[in-house]
């Protein structure tokens, strides 16, 4: 099961170096192009959903609009606020951009995932995977990068030397730290199933014939949908996208953490945000929907990996735009309640249920008895949690009442 990228199993020579270099360039270019597309797609689709025209001047269907905006950003004046902490103000946009790039390096983009091929392709006589890097800790790397991404937002708000950005960044930090816990707990379910932290192994596990010969063998189904739903919700919150975009609630905070940013520095934040949207969709596809694995029909089998990957990715990009166009923003206390009182307990309980079923399978216990006992324990835990939340709410109400009388 455990396998490193076969590219590095031999000696490290010039050819290996060139292949790695080519992969870096391709991954970088692919991500940038998909981000350009995503910005245009979001504007166009959002316009369609709200019955507007959207960008339609630059190029056919306005597809060159993003490029034009990018050039405009380059030539705008670069403003540094007088009260800003200069060095950190300059550093912050890069702290948000670099993790967004790094995550994409561990996403499998193609390959034939059959028992014989194992997702290996041959390039210039060398065997390798169709992904930039396959560290044995790929999933942890994704989580680590998403936790580093907090720094960009937080430091941008603090170093601007103004109160609205600071408020925005304090909100953002609290939100991202809270939802990271739910994100991590729902990933554990997938990792337990795959028995590996490598993203390549994750796709390999999900390839092939699934349940009943009709359904695919995706983690989405194998983990019982719940971790997937939690991951998508927590992921949307992690991206600071609507309905969780309190970070840049324009009615309250002007522009949130990037109020003081202009020209190319603002463009970097903008780029990072859309890049994170693309990579988060790619992560969801890899962890829950089998990534590039899928049936092959006509033509070369190699062609179908990227096609499956791109079409699954597109589904989630559409979903993110759809959410933005339809859902109103959460209130701040609702956001925190959803994160701490709903998502984290459910994901923790579901993880324990899957773990006990896993152990039951290994030990040969009766699955139904174990599942029944687990559900019973879960019910007791739920009642205790609900009781605790109700008690604390009642006490807070009482305290507020006493405070108002005094």
């Amino acid at each position, binding site marked *: 099961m455990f396998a490193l990228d076969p590219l590095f199993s031999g000696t490290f020579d010039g050819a290996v170096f060139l292949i790695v270099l080519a992969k870096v360039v391709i991954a970088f270019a692919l991500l940038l192009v998909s981000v350009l597309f995503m910005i245009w797609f979001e504007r166009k689709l959002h316009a369609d959903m709200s019955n507007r025209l959207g960008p339609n001047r630059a190029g056919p269907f306005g597809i060159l609009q993003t490029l034009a905006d990018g050039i405009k950003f380059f030539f705008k004046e670069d403003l540094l606020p007088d009260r800003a902490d200069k060095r950190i103000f300059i550093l912050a946009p890069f702290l948000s951009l670099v993790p967004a790039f790094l995550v994409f390096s561990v996403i499998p983009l193609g390959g034939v995932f059959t028992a014989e091929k194992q997702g290996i392709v041959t390039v210039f006589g060398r065997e390798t995977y169709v992904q930039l890097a396959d560290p044995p800790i790929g999933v942890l790397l994704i989580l680590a990068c998403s936790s580093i991404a907090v720094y960009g937002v937080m430091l941008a708000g603090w170093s601007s030397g103004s109160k609205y950005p600071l408020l925005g960044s304090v909100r953002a*930090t609290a939100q991202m730290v809270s939802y990271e816990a739910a994100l991590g707990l729902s990933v554990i379910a997938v990792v337990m199933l795959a028995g590996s932290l490598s993203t390549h192994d994750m796709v390999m596990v999900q390839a092939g014939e699934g349940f009943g010969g009709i359904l695919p063998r995706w983690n989405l189904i194998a983990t019982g949908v719940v971790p997937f739903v939690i991951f998508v919700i927590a992921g949307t919150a992690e991206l600071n996208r609507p309905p969780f975009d309190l970070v840049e609630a324009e009615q309250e905070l002007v522009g949130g953490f990037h109020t003081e940013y202009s020209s190319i520095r603002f463009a970097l934040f903008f780029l990072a945000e859309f890049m994170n949207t693309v990579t988060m969709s790619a992560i969801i596809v890899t962890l829950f929907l089998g990534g590039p694995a899928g049936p092959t029909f006509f033509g070369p089998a190699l062609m179908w990996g990227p096609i499956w990957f791109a079409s699954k990715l597109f589904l989630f990009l559409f979903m993110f735009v759809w959410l933005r166009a339809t859902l109103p923003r959460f209130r701040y206390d609702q956001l925190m309640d959803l994160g701490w009182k709903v998502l984290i307990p459910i994901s923790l309980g579901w993880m324990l249920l899957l773990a006990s079923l896993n152990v039951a399978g290994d030990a040969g216990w009766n699955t139904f008895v174990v599942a029944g006992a687990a559900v019973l324990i879960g019910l007791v835990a739920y009642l205790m949690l609900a009781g605790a939340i109700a008690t604390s709410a009642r006490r807070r109400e009482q305290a507020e009442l006493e405070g108002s009388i005094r």
Partner: protein
Amino acid sequence: MVAQNVFFYLLAGIILFSAFRVVTSNNVVHAALYLVAVLAAVAAEYVLLAAEFVAATQVLVYIGAIIVLFLFGIMLTRAKLGSDQDLTHPHWALSAATAVVMFGVMGYALVDQFHWTATPLPADTRLVSVDGSNSATVSDSVFTAYLVPFEVVSVLLLAALVGAIVLARKD
């Protein structure tokens, strides 16, 4: 092995410089960011030792959670830009002496554990030669040989959590 040595000393230099700046910086947020640099460089040292699981955990837990909460606390209470003058503690020399003693004790314990000899590297130093994944090795040893210390630490963290909530509650 030469490349590893070069990077080891490079990272060690970064760690020492940043650690020095953590205690001498006049701005709390800058000090916290230098601490991030120290922790990140330590994570990079773990990667050099082919302990990628420990490295990722270091980034995830220390940089991604603990320092973020530090900064969060600083921003909520004293988010002042520019330098503070009252950051240097009057008894800083005593603290420095304590730190040196701690360093001596821990360094001695570490070197003594290896009986004052350098452990030779394995003949095949490539990652492929490692049997199984590092994460599996780490988890196997945590849940077998070191189970009791692991659980004790977990209970300690839980106690700290409960303690923090008790302290923070109004009633």
